[in-house]
């Protein structure tokens, strides 16, 4: 093996190990990590029936395969009808979670949906209480 090849392999190993190390952080309670200003954000679609219907479509497309079609959760993923989601978490908290995800626990970021769709899906989730 040439010196260049060995160097390249070392670079790849360092990249992989760095990523693993950075994610070896315990989950913790995501709710406690939400900044105050995010927690207080107001859902611009709140109380709009069309937003709930649109949010349901988004939920079935993107969320149901992990959280279940009825949002009751699955073997590995939590229910969205829990008191944590329905009572403790504000719309702003859920928006922060959907934007940032919780990658260490398998929850991806959904920022690619854009703010309007994120707020719409929150309308739907909150309508499930």
């Amino acid at each position, binding site marked *: 093996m040439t010196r260049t090849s060995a160097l390249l392999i070392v670079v790849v190993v360092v990249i992989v190990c760095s990523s693993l190390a*950075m994610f070896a952080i315990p989950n913790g309670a995501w709710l406690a990590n939400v900044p105050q200003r995010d927690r207080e954000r107001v859902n611009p679609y709140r109380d709009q029936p069309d937003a709930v219907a649109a949010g349901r479509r988004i939920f079935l497309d993107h969320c149901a395969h992990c959280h279940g079609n009825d949002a009751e959760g699955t073997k590995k993923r939590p229910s969205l009808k829990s008191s944590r989601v329905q009572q403790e978490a504000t719309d702003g908290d859920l928006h922060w979670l959907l934007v940032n995800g919780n990658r260490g626990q398998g929850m991806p970021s959904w920022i690619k949906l854009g703010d309007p769709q994120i707020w719409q899906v929150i309308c739907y989730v909150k309508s499930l209480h």
Partner: protein
Amino acid sequence: MMLPSYLNCRCQEYPYFVTYSQEMEEPGNLDIEMFNVVGNPQGGNSFLGSDVEFEYGLKGWWTTEFYLDGQATQNESTIFTGLRWENRFRPLSREHWINPVLYAEFEDTSADKTIREVVGHDGLPDFLVPNWLARMDKERELELKLILGSNVHGWNISENFIAEKNFAGDPWEFGYAFGASRPLQLAASAHECTFCAEKFQVGVEMYGGLGDANGFGLPLTSQYLGPTINWTAPNGMTVAFSPQFGLNGYSIPVLYRFSVSYEIQQFLSHFHRSGQ
């Protein structure tokens, strides 16, 4: 009647062909994509380059992809050109103004014409070499990328910086890619629709070579720029198209790119008896 969720995915994807965004594949999902590019190099034969891509989300921060490449050149032959395996790692867990992703790929190809990236002095002369001769040139390469991506007011803006090293001892080659895109409508409709604005994403993509370690810069490099669009069908299939224009005489004048992709959600769960 409601379809099972894994048949019902309308996954939103950015309409890029060369540029990588900061988005990772969702854990457990398998995305199957077919990319194609058609070109007609001046003084050479028209070609169709294709690859089939299997992209799997291992973790929220780790996506792996496997490619099978091939090409068909008019008046010459249709050949399998090789394979590639790539891994992407997202080092920061939360969203930031700019989100970095680290990328490492090993490729073993020859006579490849898929043009999934442009580095070094890749350009028109490479496409004038007949297949029988080009196949003798085995390219075993390591490709590293720094991917930077931002989401701002519905826009995705992504930049890639590429460094590629051929194990045969060639110097490091460099390249870049840039893409920006946005859905035509950000909010979802209350009712199912097929051709409504939210189903379309439009954008622009630019990429090219930046020379190599012996001569960094734009001389003798190919550069491409073009609009791009995709549409997500109600069954979850995404179709994308982009005409991309060579910006200098070292580039192929026009490339027509199109792709079809489909995502299977929670792929492995279909093999479990208790899977949903």
